[in-house]
């Protein structure tokens, strides 16, 4: 009996021209969003490769220079993106794309792509992830709202009961019927997205596993929306009320609550103030921090160390370049200060994201956003690895160049020049792509939230479909 209801629902759905159009339109929009994502990915990668080549050439061809001057010329690092970022751009528009690796500059990725975008991008950004989080839930509501409500509204439900149908059979038949249609749309969209992204970006093993997991989370989220829409259809007296209720639920789940959860994260812990960090960095260098003495004492300390090491008692007698040693020591202090302060700032941002993740208890879309972006390596925290690599690179570069000056620049001082052989000793900047599966596995709160929501909404749908109308009938 259930099977025949399922088949009837299936056939009826595909006979409905308008609904077919809605489904086709969704699939077309989704495919378009994946294609646009692929174009953006390919554009980014070609721009990155060209920029990397250009800055490397600039570095190698900077001509003869004092090694310390070269630390002010520096180079620029550009982060890589995973192929899965085509499907889940996550926080990428809000993460910098260039880190200027120069003495005297903060080594973080700056130049956020979103800053050049129109503010309209903050309203609707047609990415594949947006399609899963906002548009597909809308399609689910549209295809589900009438599932149980229409039969009740038209009296068909009473008729079927009168001729001996069982309520459970009716409810499950309808549920599986609509569910089957949605499952087909889900599978087609998911497969299509994966195929295009894989062709365009070249999935590695990590990408493929992450993509499959992403599919699981999309499935859970879509299931949650489906069960909620079904529950509303199960209790609504008319299909109009069911659609209205479904749309309100969709607006809350897909739009309002994720935004509120994010804002709550932002204000729960004040974002680190850039100006405060800059002030603290200046103070660290000037007055010292932790066990580091103030600048004057450090200069004095370096001088005394050199006196001891070279067994002389006057500056004039030193056989090494004093400023060179001073630069080495200052770069170490700057690096330590930067590491300490950046660590503090990161802890604040991590706390914000954790608060946002707690908000997922009320908003499964937030859990999906966090899991999706983490699986694609596009979460904000996953840029930390590249930033650390950039910091390490900049520090190594300064150390090598300043050591060269300290060791060989005694006679000529600032006029000591070095050239291409030295520049070649500084490797090309390389940062690995962030770990995707490992990082997503750490988001246990989001995973558990999605599973709890899925289970609870499944129970709710079953309860409202089977129990509530019976109470209504008695009245």
């Amino acid at each position, binding site marked *: 009996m259930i099977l025949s209801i399922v088949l009837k629902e299936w056939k009826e759905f595909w006979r409905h021209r308008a609904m077919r159009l809605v489904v086709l339109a969704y699939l077309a929009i989704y495919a378009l969003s994946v294609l646009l994502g692929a174009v953006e990915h390919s554009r980014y990668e070609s721009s990155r490769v060209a920029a990397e080549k250009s800055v490397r050439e600039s570095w190698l061809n900077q001509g003869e220079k004092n090694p310390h001057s070269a630390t002010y010329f520096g180079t620029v690092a550009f982060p890589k993106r995973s192929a899965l970022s085509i499907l889940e751009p996550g926080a990428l528009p809000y993460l910098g794309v260039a880190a200027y690796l120069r003495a005297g500059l903060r080594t973080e990725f700056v130049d956020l792509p979103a800053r050049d*975008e129109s*503010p309209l991008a903050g*309203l609707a950004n047609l990415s594949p992830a947006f399609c899963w989080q906002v548009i597909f839930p809308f399609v689910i509501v549209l295809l589900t709202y009438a599932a149980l409500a229409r039969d009740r509204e038209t009296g068909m439900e009473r008729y079927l009961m009168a001729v001996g149908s069982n309520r459970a059979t009716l409810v499950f038949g309808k549920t599986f019927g609509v569910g089957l249609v949605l499952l087909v749309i889900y599978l087609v969209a998911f497969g299509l997205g994966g195929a295009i992204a894989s062709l365009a970006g070249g999935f590695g093993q990590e990408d493929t596993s992450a993509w499959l997991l992403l599919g699981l989370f999309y499935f859970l989220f879509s299931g949650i929306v489906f069960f909620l829409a079904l529950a509303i259809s199960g209790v609504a007296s008319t299909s109009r009320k069911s659609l209205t209720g479904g749309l309100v639920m969709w*607006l809350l789940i897909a739009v309002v609550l994720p935004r509120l959860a994010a*804002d709550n994260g932002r*204000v729960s812990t004040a974002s680190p103030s*850039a100006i405060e960090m800059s002030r603290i960095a200046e103070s660290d260098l000037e007055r010292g921090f932790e066990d580091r003495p103030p600048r004057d004492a450090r200069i004095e300390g370096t001088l005394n160390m050199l006196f001891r090491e070279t067994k002389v008692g006057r500056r004039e007698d030193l056989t090494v370049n004093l400023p060179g040693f001073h630069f080495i020591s200052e770069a170490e202090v700057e690096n330590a200060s930067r590491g300490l302060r950046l660590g503090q700032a990161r802890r604040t941002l991590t706390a914000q994201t954790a608060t946002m993740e707690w908000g997922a208890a009320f908003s499964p879309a*937030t859990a999906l956003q966090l899991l999706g972006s983490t699986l694609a390596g596009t979460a904000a925290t996953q840029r930390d690895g590249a930033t650390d690599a950039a910091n390490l690179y900049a520090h190594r570069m300064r150390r090598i160049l300043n050591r060269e000056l300290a060791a060989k620049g005694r006679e000529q001082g600032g006029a000591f020049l070095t050239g291409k052989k030295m520049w070649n000793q500084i490797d090309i900047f390389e940062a690995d792509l962030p770990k995707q599966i490992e990082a997503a596995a750490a988001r246990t709160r989001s995973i558990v939230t999605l599973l709890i929501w899925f289970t609870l909404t499944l129970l709710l749908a079953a309860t409202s479909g089977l129990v509530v109308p019976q109470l209504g009938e008695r009245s």
Partner: protein
Amino acid sequence: MNRPLILAVSAFLLLGLVAAWNGRRMRESLSQVEAHVASANQQRLEIGKLNAGFTSGEGRARPEDSVLVAADRIAPWMVSGTPGLAGAAIGQAALRRTIWRPNSGGAERGLEVFENGQTLAAGGFDLAIVMVLALPLVILFAPRHDLVLLALGPAVSLLGILGSGAPLTQADTWLRVLAWLVLSGLYGLFWLLVRRKNWVYWATGVAYVTLVFIVPGLAVAVVDLLLPAPSRMALAAKKQAALLPVMAKTSRDLAPFYEVHPEFAENGATPADYDRIRLAAEAQWSEAWEPLRQQAEGSADLHRMAVEVVGKLSPASILYSALLETAGTGVSRQDAFEETAREFGRQWSIALRAGVGRGHPLRPADLDRLPTFRYQEQPLLSWMLPAVIGILSLAAWGAAMQMTRKRR
């Protein structure tokens, strides 16, 4: 009024008030940046004054003996004021707000405000979002009562703006509020006219999602495809390439100072020499960099403008853009601020040149000669023009909807 209508209106009002409360919190968080900047500037100036009156006892040069180094350490950070209506339409204010600083060559973006990319990517929840996304749903699906539904947008907007902490003592704020109310009223009218078409429910829903999400999303996507924003990576590479010949030329001159260290001046060179050479180097750098910067900014402006134009295909994007501009959290206010910052940078640069010309380190009296930055609110026209364009565009959409109705 019937019960379902009261329920719908109450739910919308509640949503508006939650958005206003949330916006108020976000606005307070934004205004902390100004407090930090003011406090840091005060501290820098005090330290600058101490240094300006101090001479090293050992006769060795100090970094502050250079006018440029000393001025760099007291150069005031500049940031735009928090817009009065920021709590109503927070938009991407946190993203666009950057902290500027003057230097000998003018002014440049000094610091990017730290923000959590993850929370920014999720988007903010404010009154503008409620108006753009939720108002049409109420108008389309709540029980029909034209007058109530039409008044809903402006009424909840007014309450929300009052609740979002807008400073209502300024005439400028009231003008902005007025523009906001007209915009939300016209948007409501448009959706009321859509409702009058009496489409089947699901078709109304499809029309909603198409106009509110898909068309604005497509506008951004299509312009991204055909007229992309400039690649910041390419710009960084060009910047590095432009720096190459400048440094090749200036590094030799700056060799006695190890590029930026007048305190280590060698071979009889003095910090005053450093200032002179550094000024010339900065001028060369500005000459090389400015055309690149202008080209990139121009491309970004063109890209944004194209999105705005294509976005006119959806009343939702018209309203959203206009509300952000009206609230001062769009692009025009930041542009106006950056123009003010650049102008201040020019004044600062002139003052520094005069300081270098005097040939001695900065003295306390010299500090008084340096210009002081004061934030100026954006000109009226710069926000009013987009608001009026928004009003006219929404009116045109309403008229088009009305005309198609008559034809039927």
